[in-house]
């Protein structure tokens, strides 16, 4: 059922190159950039939830942590290369610790959801109450509700005055997403990825086969957080300000909606779901007859009721029926049948 790796990479590269080239003719690059960043954030949850079965209510926390790490480090170093690296490492480390605590404690489904939610809320409350002058990391004031504006934005490594912004920043983010996508593809094709899917399907069976389930879940959780952290750092560069709303519950909620709508258990689904829904919100924002939140809510309800697999699996199913070949989003069908059990 698996196609050769080389062919997969080639397809990804060609398709994404065409998309990156064409998209600016349809949507402005400033908006496109943030859609790409959201796509990466969607992918981070799509990986751990869709392939690892870990429903994290706090993916926004890692996103926010990445953004804040970048902002704080960038103010202190006056340069962007090391902060970018830190913005990946800090959320990943945090996730590894949190994940170890949860998975070795054998927390599952709802309880896992509560813990991740609570941790997000703690971070939000903490960051939101750091307006006082005593909250300083190096040269960076945490700023509480104000957030942190005015940090060094992305520059060419080694040359702090050569900023990467505007169209160049769009291409940078797009390439970053393609690279992350390919890395995720490799990961899922590796034995680690296949065992992760196995854990999702039947945790006990994999444990009895002698694999350390808790360790593997923890690592996967950490990888997801690293991707979310990278997205957060990119977002910080795009918005040129980080605020506590990044840690907010609605932010984490939205990521889950993206994954559901795009399609769980696929790599492409969460990316398309994120970019698509974010763009839809943007378009909806231009009219004021119907409230935007109302429509988002309605979409989520309708998807859960009528299209619980999401858009990408549904279309690739259609593709399969029409052309008798595999679609571009690989759906592990057994996943849906077992949905009720681990959910």
């Amino acid at each position, binding site marked *: 059922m698996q196609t050769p790796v080389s062919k997969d990479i080639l397809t990804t590269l060609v398709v994404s190159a065409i998309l990156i080239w064409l998209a600016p003719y349809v949507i*402005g690059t400033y908006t496109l950039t943030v859609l790409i960043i959201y796509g990466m954030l969607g992918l981070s949850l799509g990986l751990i939830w869709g392939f690892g079965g870990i429903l994290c209510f706090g993916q926004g926390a890692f996103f926010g942590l990445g953004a804040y790490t970048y902002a704080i480090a960038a103010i202190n170093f006056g340069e962007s290369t090391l902060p970018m690296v830190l913005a990946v490492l800090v959320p990943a480390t945090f996730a590894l610790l949190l994940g170890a605590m949860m998975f070795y404690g054998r927390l599952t489904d709802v309880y896992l959801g509560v813990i991740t939610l609570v941790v997000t809320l703690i971070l939000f409350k903490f960051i939101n109450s750091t307006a006082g002058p005593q909250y300083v990391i190096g040269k960076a004031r945490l700023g509480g509700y104000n957030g942190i504006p005015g940090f060094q934005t992305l520059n060419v490594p080694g040359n702090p005055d050569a900023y990467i912004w505007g169209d160049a920043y769009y291409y940078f983010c797009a390439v970053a997403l393609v690279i992350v996508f390919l890395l995720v593809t490799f990961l899922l094709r590796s034995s680690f990825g296949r065992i992760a899917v196995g854990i999702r399907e039947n945790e006990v069976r994999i444990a009895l086969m002698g694999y350390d389930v808790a360790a593997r879940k923890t690592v996967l959780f950490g990888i997801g957080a690293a991707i979310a952290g990278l997205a957060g750092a990119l977002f910080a560069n795009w918005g040129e300000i980080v605020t506590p709303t990044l840690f907010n519950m609605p932010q984490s909620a939205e990521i889950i909606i993206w994954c559901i709508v795009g399609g769980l258990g696929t790599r492409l689904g969460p990316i398309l779901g994120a970019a698509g829904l974010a763009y839809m919100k943007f378009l909806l924002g231009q009219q004021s007859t119907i409230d935007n939140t109302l429509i988002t809510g309605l979409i989520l309800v309708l998807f859960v009721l009528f299209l619980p697999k999401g858009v990408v699996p549904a279309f690739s199913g259609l593709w399969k029926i029409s052309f008798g070949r595999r679609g571009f989003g690989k759906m592990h069908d057994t996943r849906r049948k077992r949905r009720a059990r681990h959910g």
Partner: protein
Amino acid sequence: MSLNRRELLGGAAALTAASLLPRVAMAGDVIKLGSILDTSGPFDAYGKPMDQAMRLAVQEINAAGGLLGKQVEVTAYDTQSDMALYSQYGQQLTRQDKVDVVHGGILSASREAIRQTMRKTKTLYFYNVLYEGGVCDRNIFINGVTPAQQVEALVPYAMKKSGPKVYILAADYNYGQITSRWIQKFVAENGGEVVGNDFFPLDVSDFGSTIAKIQGVGPDLVIAPLVGGAHLSFFRQWAASGMKDKIALASTTLGVGNEQKVLTPEEGDGIMVAYNYSQQLDTPENKAFKTAWAAAYGSSDNIHETAVSTYQGVKTWAKAVEMAGSMDRDAIIAALESGISIDGPGGKITVDPKTHHAVLDVHLMEFENQEMKVIETLPQRQPIDTQAVCDLASNPNDNTQYEL
């Protein structure tokens, strides 16, 4: 982190169109005024009348023939009380819409989110809100009341009416943090003592434990620089627990959003404040302004401090543009720095050339029967707090917010 949630006042439509088209600046047969305000969300009590005031001022300017023979066109964004949207719309106003001037920002957090963008893109920026003082930046003009103008007058008055022990409850962001330091300074100078100082994030709405704690400390006076809809519940809970007749209450923000009309007389009466404007001001300018407002919007009930500041800000800018005779930013700044003044609804208001702040009248007031009764008027107060640290004439490249 929504891209945008609700109405965008048509602004976003222009944005998409602009991003579809080749990016050519619409060269100028109109003057573009950018506005960026929270007209929805918890701060809309401030933002909505500010938006109306800005539009009223622009209407009046256009009705009188516009500026330099051109009409003024408004590009407005609703930031939905979300600080992250400020930086986003700030970028759009300056980079895509290429407006000539930006009026707006409400919370100090929102001002700091866009101030550097305005400076970088050399877009003249007016912040028309009462605030904590100290911003020193040649690109920005501020006509709101600062602590030296407000707190310095309010503190001795309130302490004289109550006693020397003061408890401060402040909003937990830059405004509350800095303002409470000013309050501490003025309390000390007047021979008083600050016995407690608590900060509350803007979403806190349960003050039960705080009210009990205040009673444990037993101050003579509570000063509350609290901000926004959630914090309004403090004044309700304070009255509900029967504290209002026991400990005096003063605020540096209550009433700015017309809160005296939201609170019942039982909840509000007796709270002491000091601002540049009250609807009860008995001046011909205020009467004319209220009539014009009522003609435009039906009722003049929702006019408040920051709405008047916004109106005065736009009018000051317009006068400077006429004086400069061009839309060149430096020419307009030079005109403003000549110390021009206008007679607004809140009295005479003059640009202070050294600090880009304003010299204005401050009125000591008390809430009475859902109105702000003027007790005493302190004419033409200088922004001495900012003057002490900021001199843009000798140091035009300064770009700091000085804190106490």
